[in-house]
């Protein structure tokens, strides 16, 4: 199996506080990896280090075997890593369709071609297809800011897949989404994985969501990897139950 992402001995210190402590894991092509852990266990910091939002203090990040440690978020994005944020981040004044086109337009051609090329940057069809895939057709022309929270989460997720990424990192996709919408989201993410072989890493608090969606799980506690394995083995792991799942 091909390794899409490999994180080796990654650490991040903030003025003496160790937020991420010697973390190593990998993501294989076509899998959905879950990262769980209590609040403050370093999940988002880990994401930010992988994605170039923060510079790691130590360790390596490899994408398809290539060193990408410390690259800028925009560069990493163009290399094929896309993400969503913990807090909802769509562009409220742009329509749903525009949001999706924006998510991929910087991946092709140079600045000048973008200025003089077609208005949809040649992405109109891809966007229409992605909108249909996430069942957002009736909302395509609405401003994203006018949508419900759950709908915006769907748009947010759809944006992450627009550029045909090698790897998608989803930071709490289920946060604040109502149950019906959650089922939709889960269904779409799974379809993305099965039908298109998309690879992703999910940070999530919602245990049911993670356990049913992910093929493998990494558990973080106090910045360290506490355990990793299949959802089944994680559910039974005494250390995990102690630290996190508990009751």
């Amino acid at each position: 199996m091909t390794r899409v992402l490999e994180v080796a001995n990654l650490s991040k210190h903030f003025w003496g506080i160790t937020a991420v402590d010697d973390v190593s894991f990998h993501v294989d092509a076509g899998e959905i990896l879950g990262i769980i852990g209590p609040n403050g266990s370093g999940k988002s910091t880990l994401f930010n280090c992988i994605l170039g939002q923060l510079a790691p203090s130590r360790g390596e990040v490899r994408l398809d075997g290539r060193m990408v440690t410390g690259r800028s978020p925009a560069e990493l994005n163009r290399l094929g890593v896309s993400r969503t944020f913990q807090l909802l981040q769509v562009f409220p004044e742009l329509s749903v369709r525009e949001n999706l086109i924006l998510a991929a337009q910087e991946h092709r051609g140079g600045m000048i071609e973008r200025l003089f090329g077609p208005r949809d940057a040649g992405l109109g069809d891809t966007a229409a297809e992605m909108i249909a895939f996430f069942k957002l057709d009736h909302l395509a022309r609405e401003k994203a800011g006018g949508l419900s929270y759950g709908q915006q989460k769907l748009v947010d997720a759809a944006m992450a897949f627009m550029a045909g990424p090698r790897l998608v990192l989803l930071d709490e996709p289920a946060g604040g989404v109502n149950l019906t919408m959650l089922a939709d989201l889960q269904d779409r993410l799974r379809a993305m994985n099965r039908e298109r072989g998309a690879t992703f890493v999910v940070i999530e608090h919602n245990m049911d969501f993670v356990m049913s969606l992910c093929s493998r799980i990494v558990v973080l506690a106090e910045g360290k990897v506490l355990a990793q394995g299949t959802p089944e083995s994680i559910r039974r792991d005494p250390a995990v139950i102690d630290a996190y799942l508990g009751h």
Partner: protein
Amino acid sequence: MTGATRRLPWLGLAILVGAVLLIPPLFLARYGLYIMSMWAVMTIAAIGLNLTLGYAGQVSLAQGAFVGIGAYCAGILTTSFGWNGIATIPVAIVLCFAIGWLLGYPALRVQHHYLAFVTLAFSTLAFLVFRNEEWLTKGIYGIENIHRPTVFGMRTAKPLPFYFFCLGTLATMSAMAWWVVRSPWGRAFVALRENPVRALSLGVDVRRYTLVAFAIGSAFGGVSGVLYALLVQFVEPPAFGLALSLNILMMVIVGGSGTFFGPYLGTMIAVLLPEWLRLTTRLGQLVPEDSTWHARVVHWLDLPNQYYLILYSIFVIVLIAYSPKGILGFVEAKIADRRTRQASTLRVAAAPTLLGEDRP
């Protein structure tokens, strides 16, 4: 409603605007044409600021300085070197683009009101150069006798042809702005304004787009400046002080920052309204000075001459309080509101079939 019938009102509006811009000027006197030319000239500067501020979200209090740079370009090159006024436009564009690009660098570090201060400082700097570098700008004496150019064999020395020259330039610049705004660049600018961190994570080169936004907006300021110099035929430092920058900012905000036609409307209000309201001056003068106490107060405060400014200020305060996105922002919100309501009515009507399809 079909697409064609929906477009009909807009087409009617476009024809009306075109008629207003083309027909009455044929009958206007010199002063009326001067005012309308000034509207076209200032609109170009406002369009530029709207790109930088309205679309890309970069606050700038320096647009007046770029108008000044453009104006001095035209003034110096036409008087000292005998250039045709038209030929100075490309020079002003290149110069303002380059300086605007450099002014963009601070914007990579600071935003919002801090950026306003940086651009304010630049504005002051430009003013000092205009005033003190006498070898180049003739300092406080200003540059006189700027000749209007011959455009495609048409002499523009008279007010009417010059007005049409301004209108033609405005049309050209509008087409360019429209192109930029509708291209993927326009989308990237809006992303920059709304959420730079997210934009970066989508591969948008925030750095380069910020610089480009400043540069393009400034180049528009430069073009406006060239026309200003040719219109007034005299340039002097005070014309390009902070007041002008604030005025252009006001035009953008009153019209509707981030809407395409906002600057046209905002400039119209800023340029024409004072002229209309000047009528109130005459009303003030009708009060005999020796009559009542309030007439004395009015006279003492010099209210007659300030009426239009007071009314304009009140208008701006009320407008911004109720609609921070300006007049067109307000109109746009209303239209969007109505469209959403129509769409949800349709959706409710179609709901049973949708449910039937989704969950059999």
